[in-house]
Every structure is written in structure tokens, then in C-alpha cells.
């Protein structure tokens, strides 16, 4: 419950923070978008202003130069055509008209003091719209352009310079040239459609000189007022007031206003030179706003897309994180469950164990008490002690299992590999389980097939443990009268020629295991399902340990089991071969008969016998065997030895032996093969004429040693005695202070044909050794207690000498002290071994051989 709550809290926090983050990012993006949009609008307006300022500047410059040019033309004309040069006014006028024409003036006129205009050249007369300021400028010799009209009402621009020419009624005050206003408009390129902006030219009172937008209104102010919407009245008035002020003061002016259609337009004004005019440029923002709008739209879209991508990414990350968290929680939960299960199994195990331990403990305590009260009854006490011993053994087994398991769990179990005889191991195991099997009246078969390599490298204790565990389980879980068998087969090992593969199979027809149980078979602290197996005792560790050992040995274990039909364990192990000792297992080429109802056993036995030189025949029943023996006897070609199985169908081994003896007499040795302890029937068998017993399994060596004693020819020589003479000629330095002891030693060792030299104390020993040639002495026998320098000091001194054999030469202690600390001290100072006094020549010979011959 608590966990769920916690998990919910975590989820809630995650969701809330995610949503918070979502909102925050949307907000930030929105604010950013709006801000950017404002800024860019502002920037665009500024750019517009700058653009219009530039255009205005250009326009007015252009206007200025155009005006200036016209004035210069006028000045030039006035300079060239003077009154004195012409005789008649007509000539003068003609000249003026001509000059005006080539200077592309449309009109030329003279102006009198009171403002009368006399046209010299041009289609019609011209008249300024407002003569007063024009005349004033003329009088003051100021260059100023004005707008006028010709007789057709067409707008013209007038350029007046003050110059005096004769007129019809007195002298003129000025010469006035004129061009059509359109020309000027063209010059200023005003009112063209493809321009972004259009221009007005205003007089100080706001009336149009030039109406770039064709407003059809005389006054800009009115035209503006008429165009703008009601709502923006105040703003428009403000704009107009400001514009008027700038107009009067002839200052630059810029503003942006809203027009009737809701579009903004930018207005830029500047005074024009050579006139009282004012240039007003208007840029409708329709186009600009379009661009801006597009830009904003794009940016907004982009912003939202970016925002979306970020959000999607965030969501993905969040989702992934969420899933990971969930997974982690799940894993944690799993681990917790596993730990809980393990704890549960362990406590279950503990409670089982306490029960299992208590049972034998109770037996021990109880039996001890019973024995105490019957201390005088010898047999009774013996019985009690036997039971106590049994319980003690059982207890020890339990504790060993637990210790093994803890070793395995802490990874400390290692194999101690040594040379092992498979034969001995199997024999030992059979010997151990035999009583248990007999007690439950089960039948037991051992098959050893084709084992040619008996000596292998392996950990005998652990291998024993594995096989014993399988066998005792088989016994344990097989009801009385059941059948148990064990077989061992040697095959080629995939690891190479130096290895053999030993396949061992342990089979029973007991209660078997359920498939569910098989799955947990190798787990610790489990045992066969408690419902069916109640009183079986044990730690429940056996199979776990077995599996671990087999794994560590690099082997494999397989199991097949069926409830109520039995179980079969199959173990495959590869062992390194040990080269067999260098002596030949050969027997004389006897004719032998092997009798066993198991054909497999007969075949393998015959094969093994053949490999040691014996010609063997076999048969499967006692009756047949008797027949064969009698036949041979009749031929005078008797079997030299007969091997009989104890258990045979109808006629058993003992009966068969009796029969053969009756037919043949006592001559031929008959041996009984038995996997069982033959003490029970030994007397009966001996009476029947059985000469001896050979125990199953039938290894090569079992057969060889079992049969060898019936070989009356030359005895197989003991391989050790062959080496007896090999110590001859070895030179040994003996350090011994006591003359009598020396003589005894000398006397005894002389039997070994070694050359003995005497050093009376440690110092002499050291001197003798250091003065000898390298390799002169083969070994040193060292007494420990000596005057001048004792054995320990002498050994240390010899070992620290600078010569190649100083560290190699075997130094063997000889002392009357056999305390373990002395022995330890001996080894510490560098001695190789220790021999206790009094000198036992066999022991000395053994030790010397070990160090002198092994090299």
C-alpha cells in the first residue's frame, strides 16, 4: 500500500511539473513572439522613415538643382541679350524669344512694376496665381519660383529674375520664364504608380501646389480630414496641428497616421528650397504592413513550430524518464521479492535444520542418559553408543553440508586436484552405501564398462561427495525392495587425448520427482516435496552442492525423473589421465570362465581380462557354466580359473560352485564376484568350495590383483623393491656429535650402499660442505643438538652459501625430538624433511629415495 502511494506521489509530481513546464514554455514563447513582433514593426517603421528621409532629401536636391539650372538659364539669357545691342524692341524680343526657346522654356514674359505681364514667347499669356509674393521677390532680387496659370488655365512654374527690359509702358522689373508644371512633376517623378510612396507639394497655408495622390481637393488638411474615420478624429487633428506647425516653421516632420481603411501610412515632410513650398511624402503601409504581416506570421508559425518541437522533445524525454522510473521501480520490486523469497527459504531452511539437528541431538542426549542408567549392562551400553555414533555421524553430515553451502555461497570452494583411482572411489562408495541398501532390502547393481584409465586427476573428496549424494538420495527416495543401479562408462574426451570422459549414471525406481520440483532441484534449501516425503532428513543442500561441484569440475549433470517410476542422474566429467605406472599388468594366458546373468558385465569383464592377457569365455547361467566346465574337463583342457557371480537366476553362484566341485574336485580355483559385503555368506561359500572373492566393480586392477595370487609362477615384483639398489654410490654427509650414534647410523646406512662421511659437529659439517666440489655430496643428514654449531645454524649457513647446490642439496634432520615445533623449525631454517630417532633404516631409505631419486 505504502509503495503504491509513494509511486502515485512520484507520478503526480512528474505530471504536475511536466504540465508546469509546458505552460511556462508556451508563455515564454508567446511573450518572446509578441516582443519580437513589436520590435520588428518598430524597426520597419524606422527603416521607412529613413527611406523616406533619403528619398525626400534626394527629391529636394533634384528640385533644387532643376530650379537652380532654370535660374542660371534665365540669368544667362539676361546677360547675353542686353537692350543696348538691339536697335528695336522687336529685335530684342525676337532674340529673347529665340533664346528662351532653345533653353526649352515654354513661356517668356516681362513683368512690370505693378504686376502686368507682357508675353514675349509662348502660346498664351501667363499669370502667377498670387502675384504679390512674386513681385515682392522680384523687387528684392530674390530667386523664387511660383505657380502660375496660362490663358488656358494650365499650371506652370514661373522663374523670375529682376532685369530691366523695355516694355510697352516703361521698363520691366523682371524677366519671367515659365515651364509647364508637368515637366517639373516628371523631373520629381511624382505621382507615378509604381512608387511605394507619393508626394504632395504644399504651400504654407496647406493648399496643394502639387497633388501627388489626385485627391481632387484644394487643401491637404481638408482632404485629410475628409479621408479619416470618425474614431481617429483626435489623433488626426493632433497630426494636422503638428504638421501645420512644421509647415509654418519650415521644419522637417514625420509621423504615422491611420487612414480611413485602417491602414497606417507614414508621412514625411520637408521644406523645399527656392520656394515657400513644402514637400510632403506619404507612404501607405498597405504594402509594408503586408510584408510585416507575412513576416510576423512566418515568425509566429516558426515560433510555434519550435515551441511544438521543444514540447514534443520534452514530452519524449519525460515519457522515457517515466518509463525508466517505472522499470526501475519494477526491478526494485523484483529484487525485493527475490530477497524476501531468499530470506523465506533461509528461515524455512533454518527451521527445518533446527528440526533436523534436534532429532539426532535428542537421540544422542536420550541415548546418553539411557546408557548412563544402564552403565553396567555392557551390551546395552554398546547398543546405545552405536546409536549415538550414528546420530553423531548424521549430525556431522548435516553440518558439513551447511559448511559446504556457505563455502559455495562465498565462492571459497576450490578443488584440490590429486591423482585418484576411480576404482578406489567406486569401491569406497559402494562400501558406504552397501549397508544402507541392505538395510532397505534394495537390489544394487554396479556396472563398470570399458574403464581403461583408472588413475585420473581430480578432487577425490568432492567426486566422492557427488556420487555418494546421488546414491544416498537414490536409497533414500526408493522404497524397500526397490532397485538401484550405478554405471560408469569411459568414452573419448573432446578435450583431447590426455583426457578421458567418464559418464556416470545413477538410476533408481523410487518415488521420482514432479516436473515442478525438477525445476528447483538445484536450488539451495529445497528438498523433495514435503507432502510426499515427510520423514526424510537432510539439509536440502545436497543437490545444490552436487551441481556446484560438477560445474566447478567442468562437467555436466542431467536428470530424468518421473513420479513413482524413478529417477536417473547422468553426470559427465572430463578428467586428465595419469600415466599408468610403469609396470605391466599381465597374467598368464589362462583359460577363464566368467559366469554372470548380466551379459554386459560378462562382455566387459571378458574384454578387460583379454587386455591383461587372459583368454576368457562367459556364460549367463549356472547350469550352462557347469555344462561347459564338464565338457572342457572331458577334453582335458580345464579352465584355470572360474569367476562366478553370486546372484544368478535359478542356480546361484554358491550352488554352481558346489556342483563344479563335485564334478571337478578341488583343483580349479573358483572365485565369487560380488558387489555386496560377502561376510554374510562367506562361510557358506567357503564350504561350497569357493576359493576367494572379487568385488564389483570389475576394474582392470581389481581383476589383476584379485587373480594374481592364483598365479603360481613368478610373482609380480614389487615396483618399489626394484628401486632398492638405486641409492648405491650416493654420497651423504652425516653431522652427528656422538660417536656411538654415528657408528650406529654408519652401520645401518651401509646396507643401502651409500657412501657416508662424518662431520662431528655443525661447524665441521659446514666446512666439509663448503670445501667440497659442487655436487660432491648428494644429501646431508643433520643431527640437531651438536656442540659448537647446532643443526639449525649449520643448515642456515649451508643454505646461505654462494654455490649452486647450496639451496638444492637435501638436508634431512635426524633428532630424538619429534615435537611438531621442532619439525616446523627444521622446515623454517631450510631443511627438507625430518627423521625421528632411533634410526629406522626403512624410513631413512624412503626419505632419501624421495629426495635423491625424484630429481
Amino acid at each position: 500500500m505504502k509503495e503504491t502511494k509513494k509511486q502515485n506521489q512520484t507520478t503526480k509530481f512528474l505530471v504536475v511539473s511536466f504540465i508546469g513546464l509546458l505552460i511556462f514554455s508556451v508563455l515564454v514563447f508567446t511573450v518572446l513572439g509578441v516582443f519580437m513582433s513589436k520590435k520588428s514593426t518598430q524597426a520597419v517603421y524606422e527603416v521607412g522613415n529613413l527611406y523616406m528621409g533619403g528619398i525626400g532629401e534626394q527629391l529636394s536636391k533634384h528640385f533644387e538643382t532643376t530650379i537652380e539650372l532654370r535660374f542660371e538659364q534665365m540669368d544667362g539669357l539676361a546677360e547675353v541679350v542686353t537692350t543696348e545691342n538691339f536697335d528695336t524692341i522687336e529685335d530684342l524680343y525676337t532674340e529673347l524669344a529665340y533664346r528662351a526657346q532653345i533653353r526649352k522654356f515654354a513661356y517668356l514674359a516681362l513683368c512690370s512694376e505693378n504686376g502686368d505681364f507682357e508675353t514675349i514667347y509662348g502660346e498664351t499669356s501667363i499669370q502667377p496665381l498670387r502675384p504679390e509674393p512674386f513681385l515682392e521677390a522680384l523687387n528684392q532680387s530674390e530667386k523664387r519660383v511660383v505657380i502660375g496659370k496660362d490663358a488656358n488655365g494650365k499650371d506652370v512654374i514661373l522663374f523670375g529674375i529682376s532685369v530691366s527690359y523695355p516694355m510697352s509702358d516703361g521698363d520691366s522689373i523682371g524677366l519671367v520664364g515659365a515651364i509647364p508644371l508637368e515637366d517639373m512633376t516628371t523631373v520629381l517623378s511624382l505621382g507615378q504608380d509604381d512608387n511605394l510612396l507619393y508626394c504632395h507639394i504644399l504651400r504654407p497655408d496647406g493648399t496643394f501646389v502639387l497633388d501627388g495622390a489626385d485627391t481632387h481637393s484644394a487643401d491637404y488638411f481638408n482632404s485629410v480630414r475628409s479621408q479619416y474615420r470618425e474614431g481617429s478624429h483626435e489623433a488626426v487633428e493632433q497630426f494636422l496641428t503638428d504638421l501645420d506647425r512644421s509647415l509654418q516653421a519650415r521644419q522637417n516632420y514625420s509621423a504615422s497616421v491611420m487612414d480611413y481603411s485602417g491602414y497606417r501610412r507614414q508621412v514625411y515632410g520637408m521644406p523645399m528650397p527656392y520656394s515657400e513650398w513644402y514637400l510632403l511624402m506619404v507612404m501607405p503601409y498597405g504594402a509594408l504592413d503586408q510584408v510585416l504581416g507575412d513576416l510576423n506570421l512566418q515568425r509566429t508559425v516558426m515560433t510555434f513550430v519550435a515551441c511544438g518541437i521543444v514540447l514534443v522533445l520534452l514530452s519524449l524525454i519525460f515519457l522515457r524518464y517515466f518509463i525508466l522510473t517505472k522499470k526501475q521501480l519494477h526491478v526494485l520490486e523484483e529484487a525485493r521479492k527475490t530477497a524476501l523469497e531468499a530470506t523465506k527459504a533461509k528461515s524455512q531452511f533454518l527451521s527445518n535444520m533446527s528440526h533436523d539437528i534436534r532429532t539426532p541431538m535428542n537421540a544422542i542426549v536420550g541415548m546418553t542418559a539411557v546408557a548412563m542408567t544402564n552403565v553396567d549392562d555392557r551390551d546395552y551400553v554398546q547398543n546405545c553408543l552405536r546409536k549415538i555414533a550414528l546420530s553423531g555421524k548424521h549430525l556431522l553430515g548435516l553440518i558439513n553440508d551447511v559448511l559446504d553451502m556457505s563455502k559455495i555461497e562465498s565462492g571459497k570452494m576450490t578443488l584440490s586436484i590429486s591423482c585418484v583411482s576411480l576404482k578406489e572411489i567406486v569401491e569406497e562408495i559402494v562400501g558406504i552405501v552397501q549397508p544402507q541398501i541392505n538395510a532397505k532390502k534394495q537390489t544394487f547393481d554396479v556396472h563398470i564398462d570399458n574403464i581403461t584409465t583408472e588413475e585420473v586427476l581430480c578432487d577425490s573428496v568432492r567426486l566422492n561427495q557427488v556420487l555418494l549424494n546421488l546414491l544416498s538420495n537414490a536409497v533414500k527416495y526408493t522404497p524397500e525392495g526397490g532397485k538401484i543401479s550405478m554405471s560408469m562408462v569411459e568414452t573419448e574426451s573432446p578435450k583431447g587425448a590426455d583426457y578421458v570422459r567418464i559418464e556416470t549414471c545413477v538410476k533408481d525406481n523410487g518415488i521420482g520427482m514432479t516436473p515442478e520440483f525438477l525445476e528447483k532441484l538445484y536450488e539451495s534449501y529445497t528438498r523433495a516435496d514435503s507432502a510426499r516425503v515427510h520423514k526424510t532428513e537432510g539439509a536440502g543442500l545436497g543437490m545444490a552442492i552436487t551441481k556446484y561441484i560438477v560445474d566447478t569440475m567442468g562437467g555436466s549433470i542431467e536428470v530424468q525423473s518421473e513420479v513413482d517410476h524413478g529417477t536417473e542422474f547422468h553426470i559427465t566429467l572430463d578428467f586428465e589421465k595419469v600415466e599408468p605406472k610403469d609396470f605391466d599388468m599381465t597374467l598368464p594366458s589362462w583359460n577363464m570362465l566368467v559366469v554372470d546373468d548380466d551379459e554386459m558385465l560378462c562382455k566387459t569383464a571378458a574384454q578387460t581380462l583379454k587386455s591383461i592377457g587372459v583368454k576368457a569365455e562367459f556364460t549367463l547361467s549356472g547350469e550352462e557354466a557347469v555344462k561347459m566346465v564338464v565338457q572342457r574337463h572331458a577334453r582335458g583342457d580345464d579352465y584355470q580359473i572360474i569367476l562366478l557371480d553370486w546372484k544368478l537366476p535359478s542356480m546361484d553362484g554358491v550352488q554352481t560352485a558346489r556342483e563344479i566341485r563335485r564334478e571337478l574336485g578341488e583343483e580349479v580355483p573358483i572365485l565369487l564376484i560380488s558387489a555386496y559385503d560377502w561376510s554374510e555368506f562367506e562361510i557358506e561359500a567357503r564350504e561350497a568350495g569357493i576359493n576367494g572373492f572379487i568385488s564389483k566393480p570389475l576394474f582392470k586392477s581389481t581383476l589383476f590383483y584379485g587373480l594374481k595370487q592364483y598365479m603360481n609362477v613368478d610373482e609380480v615384483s614389487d615396483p618399489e623393491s626394484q628401486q632398492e639398489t638405486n641409492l648405491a654410490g650416493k654420497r651423504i654427509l652425516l653431522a652427528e656429535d656422538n660417536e656411538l650414534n654415528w657408528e650406529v647410523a654408519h652401520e645401518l646406512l651401509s646396507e643401502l650402499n651409500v657412501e657416508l662421511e662424518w662431520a662431528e659437529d655443525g661447524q665441521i659439517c659446514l666446512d666439509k660442505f663448503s670445501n667440497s666440489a659442487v655436487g660432491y655430496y648428494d644429501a646431508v643428514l643433520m643431527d640437531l643438538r651438536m656442540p659448537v654449531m647446532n643443526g639449525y645454524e649449520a643448515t642456515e649457513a649451508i643454505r646461505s652459501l654462494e654455490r649452486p647446490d647450496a639451496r638444492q642439496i637435501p638436508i634431512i634432520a635426524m633428532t630424538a625430538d619429534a615435537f611438531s615445533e621442532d619439525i616446523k623449525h627444521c622446515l623454517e631454517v631450510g631443511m627438507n624433511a625430518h627423521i625421528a630417532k632411533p634410526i629406522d633404516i626403512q624410513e631413512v631409505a624412503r626419505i632419501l629415495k624421495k629426495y635423491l631419486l625424484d630429481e
Partner: protein
Amino acid sequence: MDLKSCYLRLGGDYDEVLGRLHKESLVEKFLFKFLDDGSFRLLEESFANGNHEEAFRAAHTLKGVCQNLSFTQLYRSSNEMTEFLRGGTGLDAPELLAQVTADYRQTVDAILAYQTSREEHG
């Protein structure tokens, strides 16, 4: 008097020594050698001089010789002496010394008696 009864007299194990040395002549030879062995004298002298270390070594050697010759009785007392001396630094063991001396005398007497009887019988 034969070797066996000599061993009986000095409190030794004749069978054992024969088992190890194999030949009676050898046993006899070493028996007579024992009369010249200086270990016991060295032990006495060391006690007189108060030389603990020498005394220990002498006792040890005597014990070793006894083992070699299977002088069980003398071995026992000399072994006791050895162990006493191994343990400490003192020489304050008059009873032990007396015991060793007595056993030694008995051993030497037995050997001398045997020697005499051998010489008498040729």
C-alpha cells in the same frame, strides 16, 4: 649370560634393537661402545660446573644413544632430564640426576657383566 638377559638386566628392549640392527654382533659391538660414550660424563661435569646448556645437550645425546640401543630404562630417565633441562635454565634437579646416575650405573654394570661372561666363555 647372553645378550638378551643382559638387556633384561639393564632394562632394555632386546627384540626392538635386534629388529633394527638385524645382527647380534652389531648389537654387541655397540653395547661395548657404549662403555666409552662420554655423554653421561659430560652430563655429570656440566652439572658440577653449572653449565646448563652443555647439560641439556649431554642429556639429549644420552637420550639419543639410548634410543638407538633401545635402553628403555635409561632412555626414560634421560628423557625426563632432557625435558626438564629444555624447559628452564636451572640445574636444580638432584633427584633426576640421581635417577639418571642410578640407571646409567645399572646399564654399565649389566654390560660389564656381559663382557666378563663373554671373555670367560671365550
